[in-house]
C-alpha cells in the first residue's frame, strides 16, 4: 500500500494562531464602544462618517493594489481599522467628501507609498487627518452638541469641545465642566474622542488580548498627567488641572489607539516608556503653548518620527561573553 507522503519543514511546527486579521478584528471590536458612544451622543451622523471612511479606505487600498498589480491585502482588515479610526476622529458634521479625501490620503500617502501595513513610519490615520486638517481647518472644527439618545441630559455647559474652550475662553470656564461629563463624553467633540469611558473599554480589551502592549498607553497618560500637573503646580491660574487635561479631548484615544499603530511605535520596553512619556508631554506642550487647539495628532506624529531613534535603545542581550567573566 502506498501511503501519502509526509510534509517536511523546519521547526517550529506550531503557531499561536495569532494573525494580522485577528489583530484587526480585535482592533475593530475595541473601537465599537467609541462608535456606540458616537451614535449615543451625536446620532446616526457619527456612524455615517465612520462607515464612509471605512468604505473609502478599503476601496482606496484595493484599487491602488490592483493598479500596481500587487497582492490585494484588503482581507487583512487593516484598511477597515484605519478608516474606522479616522471616522471616529472626524467631527460627525463633516461632509462626505472630507471623509473620502481623508481616508484616501491616509491609505495611499500614509500607508501604501511606504509599502503597506506596518511599513509606514507615521500613523497613517493621522497623516490623513493632518492633511485635511491643514487644508480645510474650518470644516473640521465645527462640532455638534451632544444629544444623548436616552438616559443622560445633554451636557449643556459648553458649546465647543473642552480644548477649544480652554484656548479661547480661558481656564475659568473649563472649571465648571463636570468631570463626569468629560469621562462619559457628554461634551461637544468627535465620536472617538469625547468619551473616555468608551476608549478605556476598548483599550483594556486590546491590552487584555495582547494586541497592544501596556507601556505605551500607560506612560502616555502618565506623561500627560505629570507634565500638566507640574505646570498646574507652578501657576494654577494659568494652567488647567492635569485631570482635566487627561480626560478632555484626544489624550485617551491617542494613548490607546493612535500612538500604538503597528510599525510607528517602538518595540522595546525602554523605548515604549520614553515614547509614551514623550507623547504625553508633547500633547500638553502643544495644547498649552502651540497654536492648535488639540495637541494630540501632532504630538503623536512627532513621536512617530523619533521612533527609529528610540528603537536603538536595546535591551542587554543575554549571554554576552564579557559579562560572564
Amino acid at each position, binding site marked *: 500500500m502506498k501511503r501519502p507522503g509526509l510534509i517536511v519543514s523546519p521547526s517550529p*511546527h506550531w503557531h499561536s494562531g495569532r*494573525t494580522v486579521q485577528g489583530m484587526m478584528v480585535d482592533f475593530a471590536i475595541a473601537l465599537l464602544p467609541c462608535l456606540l458612544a458616537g451614535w449615543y451622543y451625536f446620532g446616526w451622523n457619527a456612524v455615517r462618517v465612520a462607515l464612509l471612511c471605512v468604505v473609502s479606505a478599503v476601496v482606496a487600498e484595493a484599487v491602488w493594489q490592483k493598479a500596481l498589480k500587487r497582492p490585494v491585502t484588503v482581507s487583512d482588515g487593516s484598511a477597515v481599522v484605519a478608516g474606522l479610526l479616522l471616522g471616529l476622529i472626524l467631527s460627525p458634521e463633516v461632509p462626505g467628501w472630507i471623509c473620502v479625501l481623508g481616508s484616501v490620503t491616509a491609505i495611499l500617502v500614509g500607508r501604501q507609498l511606504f509599502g*503597506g501595513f506596518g511599513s509606514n513610519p507615521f500613523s497613517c490615520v493621522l497623516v490623513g487627518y493632518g492633511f485635511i486638517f491643514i487644508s480645510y481647518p474650518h470644516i473640521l472644527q465645527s462640532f455638534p452638541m451632544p444629544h444623548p439618545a436616552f438616559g443622560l441630559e445633554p451636557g449643556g455647559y459648553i458649546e465647543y469641545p473642552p480644548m477649544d474652550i480652554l484656548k479661547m475662553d480661558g481656564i475659568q470656564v473649563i472649571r465648571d465642566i463636570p468631570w463626569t461629563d468629560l469621562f462619559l463624553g457628554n461634551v461637544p467633540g468627535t465620536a472617538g474622542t469625547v468619551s473616555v469611558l468608551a476608549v478605556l473599554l476598548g483599550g483594556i480589551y486590546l491590552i487584555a488580548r495582547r494586541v497592544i502592549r501596556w507601556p505605551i498607553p500607560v506612560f502616555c497618560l502618565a506623561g500627560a498627567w505629570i507634565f500638566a500637573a507640574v505646570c498646574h503646580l507652578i501657576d494654577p491660574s494659568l494652567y488647567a488641572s492635569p485631570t482635566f487635561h487627561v480626560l478632555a479631548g484626544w489624550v485617551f484615544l491617542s494613548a490607546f489607539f493612535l500612538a500604538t499603530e503597528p510599525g510607528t511605535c517602538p518595540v522595546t520596553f525602554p523605548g515604549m516608556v520614553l515614547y509614551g512619556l514623550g507623547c504625553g508631554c508633547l500633547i500638553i506642550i502643544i495644547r498649552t503653548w502651540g497654536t492648535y487647539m488639540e495637541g494630540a495628532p501632532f504630538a503623536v506624529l512627532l513621536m512617530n518620527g523619533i521612533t527609529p531613534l528610540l528603537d536603538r535603545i*536595546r535591551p542587554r*542581550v*543575554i549571554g554576552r561573553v564579557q559579562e560572564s567573566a
Partner: protein
Amino acid sequence: MKLAKIALIAASPGSPPPPDVLPHPEKIFIPLDGPWGRAEAQVAPGQTVEAGAVVGRFQDPRLPMLRASAAGSVEGIRTVNTPDGQKAQAVVLQPLGDGAPASQAPPQGAAPVALAKALTEAGFAETDRHPWPFPARICSPETASEAFQLTDAPFHNPIETLIINGLDRQPGEMVRRTVLGHLGSFVVQAVAALKALSQASRVVLVYDRSAPPGGELLRSLQEQGVDCRGLENVYPSALTPVLVQLVTGKQVPQPASDPRLVGVAVIDVTTAWQLGRFLTDGTLPLEILVQVSSWKSGLHRLYRVPAGTPLEPILAAANAAPQPAKIVVGGPLLGYAQFDRQAPLVASDFVLVQQPDEVHTYNYRACINCGHCVPVCPMKLLPNELGKLCEYGRFHDAEAQYLAHCIECGLCAFVCPAKRPMVQLIRHGKREILEMRKES
C-alpha cells in the same frame, strides 16, 4: 529572569500514566555516525550478538561504545535516515525474541575516574549539543584530566552546580514527568555517583511544579543533599541556557552555549534514570522512553523501547493517526519533521503526529513591525530586526546584533501574526555567516 508566558497545551493533567513496554520491533538500527564522526563496526553480517554486545567502537577510547540494545542477528550495515535529517551508516539488527534488557555487572565502588570510564564503556552518550558525551561533560577538572585527558577550557572550571533537569522541554511533552513519576527511585540511586563525578557543591533537581514528584521521592533526594526545586514549566525554561539562568542566575555565554564556562553542568533526568538503573543492577543505557502524541485526537502514549527502534512500530502501537500529514520528532517548537518512518530513535524523545489541518504554514510577507516577537525572546534579542536583516542579506549587521546568540527556540515565529518564517531566516543568516568565514 522573566519568561513570556505562551499558551501551553497540557498533555494531560497531573502526572502521566506509567509507560508501556513494547515488544521488540522487527528491526533495530544502531547508527555508527553521530556527532563524533563514524564508529568502526565490530560485527559482521550474519553474526549473532548478545544484548549489550559492542557493535561499534570509536577510535578515540574516550567516546562511548555503541552497543546492541537487544539480542539478535546482524542483518547488515546500511545507510539510514536519522531523525535529525542526516544520513548515517547503521548496524541493522534482527532481534531474537523479547529478551531481558542488556545488563552487565555494575561498577563497584565510586572512584570517580574508574566510574567515568565505566560509564563511557557502558555507552552513556547524552550530548545536549555539547561536543563531549555525558560522562566527560560533568566531570570535575581532576577526573576530566585523568579519565579523558581534557585539561583545557572549559574542563578546568570546577563545577559548582549540577542541575538534573526534570522539566519537560516543550509544551505537550511529558517524558521527564514520566521519569520522575514512575522511575524516580533510579534517579535517587544516581545522585551519589553524580556527586562523585562532578564534585559539585550543589546538586539541584528541577521538576515541573504542576506535576510534582511524590513526597517520598523528594524526601529521599533531599536526604542525599539534593536541592529539589519546582519551577513553573513555561517554555523555554527547560532549554539549557535559560534553565541555568533560572536556577543559578548566571548567564551562559553565547554563542558557545556551554554552561560549564560558568561552572554549571546539566544532565537530563532521562540520563539520570539510566545511570541509576545501571548502578543498581547493571542494566545498560539501551532502553529509551518515547512519547507519541496527537493533539488533534487527544492521544498521548509513552513507551519503553530499545534504543534504535524505528518510528514505524512505535507509531503503529500508538495508533496515533492512520494518515498523518507530519511526524515531528523532538517536539512542536524544536523538532524535526520526518520523511522516513524507518528513522531510528536513539535517545528518549517526543514524537508529535499532526494531521493535515494542524500543519502550520508560513507566509512570506513583510514584517508588520508589531513587536510581538520582542518580549518573548528569551535571549532578549530583537527578532524582528534579525529577521529583516537576514531577509535582505545584511548578515554582518545581523551578526553585530548578536544573531549568533539566538538559541532557535522558535518563540518569535510562534507569536508572529504575519506568520513570517523567523527561525528559518535566522538559520539562513547563521549559515551564511559560517560560509563567509570559511571562505575568508
